């Protein structure tokens, strides 16, 4: 029953958030602000993590290749596919759920407990739309860019580590990342990224929007936002993979 109550309230909030904006110019400015807060400010962490994960995947793959008949360029292929299929969409999604999700829940939650949301409503402003819609648009627009950046930097990290450690030559790696390339994987990763962006923003906003109490409850909402976003990302990852990759 509780699950149905939350699901219904979540869907109602999302519907309200997608109502027609009061003044499109103000909303456009809000989207630009959110692009910076939720998107541009996440570039650093995504690049750092992607570089090192790409590096580790390359070295681990190299040390696990014991059969001398297996060509070394497959290390590059393995790194590329791992980054494209899973890391740059799903793991980056999980990382962003922690960084962006907790940010959204605590921001909206604090606005709720300090009556700033009530102040918006009293002015006749659709608070759900004003606060949540720009975050959804910004994340859905920018997260695919983060996904692309993660793919490139991860593959580059793999090359740098592999060559520096002497487990693969530059030529072998470059050949590997071009070998049996399937462009559809990029589309698959981007679809997942967009779905995860929507989950992160709406679930976190829902947790913050209905907070009641004080700072402690805002903290708890923030934690719930990360946990539920992560669970839903993992569930939808499985669902989308089943739908998009199974023949």
């Amino acid at each position, binding site marked *: 029953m509780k699950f149905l109550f939350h699901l219904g309230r979540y869907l109602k909030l999302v519907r309200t958030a997608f109502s027609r904006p009061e003044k499109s110019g103000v909303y456009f400015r809000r989207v630009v602000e959110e692009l910076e807060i939720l998107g541009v400010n996440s570039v650093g962490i995504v690049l750092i993590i992607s570089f090192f994960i790409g590096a580790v995947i390359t070295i681990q793959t190299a040390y696990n290749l014991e059969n001398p008949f297996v060509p070394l360029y497959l290390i590059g292929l393995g790194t590329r596919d791992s980054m494209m299929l899973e890391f740059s969409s799903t793991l980056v999604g999980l990382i962003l759920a922690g960084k962006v999700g907790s940010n959204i829940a605590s921001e909206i939650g604090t606005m709720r407990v300090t009556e*700033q949301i009530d102040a918006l409503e009293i*002015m006749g402003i659709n608070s759900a739309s004003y606060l949540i819609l720009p975050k959804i648009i910004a994340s859905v627009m920018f997260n695919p860019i983060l996904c692309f950046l993660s793919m490139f930097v991860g593959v580059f990290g793999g090359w740098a580590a592999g060559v520096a450690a002497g487990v693969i030559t530059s030529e072998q790696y470059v050949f590997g990342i071009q070998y049996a390339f399937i462009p559809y994987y990029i589309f698959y990763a981007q679809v997942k990224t967009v779905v995860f962006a929507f989950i992160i923003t709406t679930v976190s906003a829902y947790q913050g929007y209905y907070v009641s109490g004080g700072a402690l409850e805002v903290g708890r909402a923030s934690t719930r936002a990360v946990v539920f976003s992560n669970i839903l990302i993992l569930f939808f990852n499985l669902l989308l993979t089943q739908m998009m990759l199974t023949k």
Partner: protein
Amino acid sequence: MIEGRNIYKSFGDKAVLEDVSVSFEPGMTNLIIGQSGSGKTVLLKSLVGLHEIDKGSIFYNDRNFTEMQRKQRKLIRQEIGMVFQGGALFTSLNIEQNVMFPLNMFTTMTTEEKRERVNFCLKRVNLENVNRLFPSELSGGMQKRVSIARAIALNPKYLFCDEPNSGLDPVTAIVIDSLIREITIEYNMVTVVNTHDMNSVMEIGDKVVFIYRGKKWWQGSRDDIFDSDNKELNDFVFASPLSKKIKKIK
């Protein structure tokens, strides 16, 4: 005029308001008083639609607010200004942006016109040269004044204040009270102030509604309070030994 008829409101099994009927006139400071937990904040928030009432009706100049759809309510809400207990200023915006916020959302004024209006409202609440500061850089009293400036930016017909003096020293509290009273008369607004500050009651209470355990227990002017023999009202208003002495002298 704002009128609430036979308002009932409960949260779960707990009845918070029971058959409360009130009316508030323009050009007067109408106070809702009562102990903490008596239901006065719920009444105020019900009047502005932040809480949906279970039974009864609310009228704004004969317009039935209770039966209105969200879109219709939106139009009424643009005639309402509200000062919240904690100020409820937008912490990510500076003072100028806070006061300009309703102008940005609901007017087609040019930036210059909006800035002029912001400066006028800030000057009206005796604040100048604070435009670039953020709410966290202001004292509690200054934040309340900015909140009043934001509330009057759109020339509202109705002003609601939820415990505007809470957390303020007595001198600043009197400044805020006087400001609310002056603005009410100047713009002929219907002002409803929710308070448990007895100084406010004595200073600005043109009409006082006493809420006790979710019911309207008493109503009158600040002068009527001294003549009233309502026990619960006297216990609340004259709770301290000093105020009891004052009542006796009067």
